[in-house]
């Protein structure tokens, strides 16, 4: 652990035995908290990227990641960040984020130190040691802890992942004007600020066997324009243009509480009913308001090319005439109806499922199939009824012109 150090700056460095993350200063404290929590679990690279990016490209911060997982060391850098690797082995070279819209990944075979720094960093003034935590930094040099390295390659890691390491940075023997006071201390007893909920700071979960491709396929990520994702570099390009629909189920977005009454309307939709049975207070009208309120607990959203945005808080069945049969609860699943003139979308076409915190997509045996495009990878046709991990940003196409994009909740 002697090779951990940082250079004070205005970005953030999150450092744990398993991972180091350099993040630009656009992220919130709850975001940092989520990154911190994830780094101290046993994250897979895609989990960590999901948390670091907030699950989306648009507005994702500049970042660099160094991660020790069961297969070795991985370095990921986005535009604006460079990683120096091999310095401790005497064969230094750089991994440059350059202009990558998404990020560049490299896998390192041997244990070594990794230095992450922002491209526009000032020339170093100070190099300070630390043991772990979150610091204001423009550069961080990190080596996986020996325990992690020793455990790498085995399925069950002996790394002290369960308990965060000491959070306090090493003493800094410098003048008071240095960023000492700006060190972000994360004592476990202090609750996170009441900010918007952090990006999916899910507990560490086992690596998914569902869709992990060969590592070789992961080495460079680039955007797939064919998927319609847009450049991703600026916010507006990424918005899927709503397609004008010839016919929709509803036309009026107003949530008028009384749109259905053809005639006389009661003063309030919750008006106590007039029981037809004497002395029977049948409905607690105070409760009526409560049960008519929907609660949003979505882990993510499906952004449809039709303009619909559907929360993923339960299984979602999508199709031309979707139906869910014999459910145990009224809200066991959602249905999403897609207007489809050409008839190339099946009645029940594709389903998005939640399983142990993971989001899966399943083709329901549709006639024309379902194609999933993970940004930077070759589009993949789903085998019927076989679950496929839905990574943030993935595009799921039901037909030539109907698709949806998965985005995790903020």
């Amino acid at each position, binding site marked *: 652990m002697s090779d951990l150090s940082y250079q004070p700056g205005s970005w953030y460095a999150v450092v744990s035995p398993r991972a180091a993350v350099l993040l630009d200063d656009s992220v919130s404290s709850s975001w940092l908290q989520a990154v911190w929590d994830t780094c101290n679990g046993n994250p897979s690279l895609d989990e960590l990227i999901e948390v670091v990016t907030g699950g989306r490209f648009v507005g994702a911060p500049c970042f660099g990641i160094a991660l020790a997982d069961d297969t070795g060391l991985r370095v990921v850098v986005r535009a604006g960040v460079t990683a120096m690797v091999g310095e401790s082995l005497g064969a230094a070279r750089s991994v440059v984020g350059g202009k990558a819209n998404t990020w560049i990944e490299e896998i390192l075979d041997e244990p070594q130190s990794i230095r992450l720094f922002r491209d526009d960093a000032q020339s170093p003034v100070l190099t300070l040691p630390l043991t772990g935590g979150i610091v204001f930094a423009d550069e961080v040099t990190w080596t996986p802890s020996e325990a992690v390295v020793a455990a790498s390659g085995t399925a069950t890691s002996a790394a002290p992942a369960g308990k965060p390491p000491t959070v306090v940075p090493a003493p800094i023997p410098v003048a008071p004007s240095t960023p000492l006071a700006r060190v972000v201390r994360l004592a476990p007893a202090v609750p996170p600020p009441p900010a918007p909920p952090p990006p999916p700071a899910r507990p560490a979960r086992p690596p998914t066997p569902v869709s992990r491709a060969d590592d070789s396929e992961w080495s460079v990520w680039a955007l797939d324009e064919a998927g319609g994702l847009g450049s991703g570099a600026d916010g507006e390009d990424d918005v899927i243009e709503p397609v004008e629909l010839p016919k929709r*189920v509803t036309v009026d977005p107003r949530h008028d509480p009384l749109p259905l009454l053809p005639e006389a309307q009661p003063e309030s939709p919750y008006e106590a009913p007039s029981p037809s049975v004497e002395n029977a207070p049948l409905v607690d009208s105070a409760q009526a308001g409560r049960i*008519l309120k*929907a609660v949003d607990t979505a882990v993510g959203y499906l952004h449809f090319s039709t303009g619909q945005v559907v929360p993923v808080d339960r299984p979602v069945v999508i199709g031309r005439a979707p139906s869910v049969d014999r459910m145990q609860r009224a809200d066991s699943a959602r249905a999403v109806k897609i207007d489809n003139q050409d008839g190339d979308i099946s009645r029940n076409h594709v389903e998005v499922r939640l399983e142990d915190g993971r989001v899966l997509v399943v083709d329901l045996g549709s006639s024309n199939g379902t194609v999933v495009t993970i940004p930077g990878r070759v589009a993949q046709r789903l085998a019927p009824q076989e679950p496929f991990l839905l990574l943030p940003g993935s595009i799921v196409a039901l037909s030539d012109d109907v698709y949806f994009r998965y985005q995790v909740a903020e």
Partner: protein
Amino acid sequence: MIAVSWGSATERGPRRNNQDALLAEPPVFVVADGMGGHAGGELASAIVVETFRTLVGYGDVPPSAVSELIGQANETILRRADADPTLRGMGTTLVTLVMVKDGDADYWLVANVGDSRLYRFADGELRQLTVDHSFVQELVDSGRIRADEARVHPQRNIVTRVLGSVQPPEAEYWLFAPEPGERYLLCSDGICGELEERDIARLMGGVGDPGLAAAALVGEALRAGGTDNATAIVIDVWDAAPAEPVLEATYEFDPGIDPGDETNPGLRMAHNPLDRLQRTRGAHRVDRTGEVDR
């Protein structure tokens, strides 16, 4: 835009009381078939209807509300039965069709407890959507009897799930998108226990106005020798509000019925449906077209 028009009819038949209850006011349609001596059956089904009346006129019903109301209705029935020994053991079936909102789209949600049913009629085909919670259904499921034997089985009246049970009943739910041109029937077993499916299909397809279709179904069920209360709600789904009043739509009645028989509620309508329906409020209720304009 989706519009619905609907109508309903209920008759006590040869029974002393009508223990069926119905609610047909968008976005909620309910048929409940009560059981239990004294006033119990009537009260239990009325409790269900009044509980679901909470949703009437509300255009933004989340699906979870329907689960909640089923739980509430069950508790209310139990509470009333506890308070009055003469009501002990009362219970009721429930079948409901509710238009629920998800995002900016409307969906039908169906919930079922017991042996009242929902049928869907579209493209000339009748399909039973709900699955009965009944002893004979279990026999059918396990392959011991055929589906067509269930209707005449001596134990056909045994219901295995009911609202008013100490163990909260497990309802089953169906969720699907509305499609213009479809027609739904909610009915008690006084209809589907007496009429064969092809007769139900004939009336669902042959009678244009939903109120008259409901009345015709009730009338034919009783005429076929029905010994139970009979209740029907018929709901039509349109892609826009029909331009003409639905009551003037084509109306074809089974010519086999004797038009002189005044005791048969299905008959008079053949002569003067509007007049007859207005005079027999309570026995038959035909609602005007309701426009679902959201």
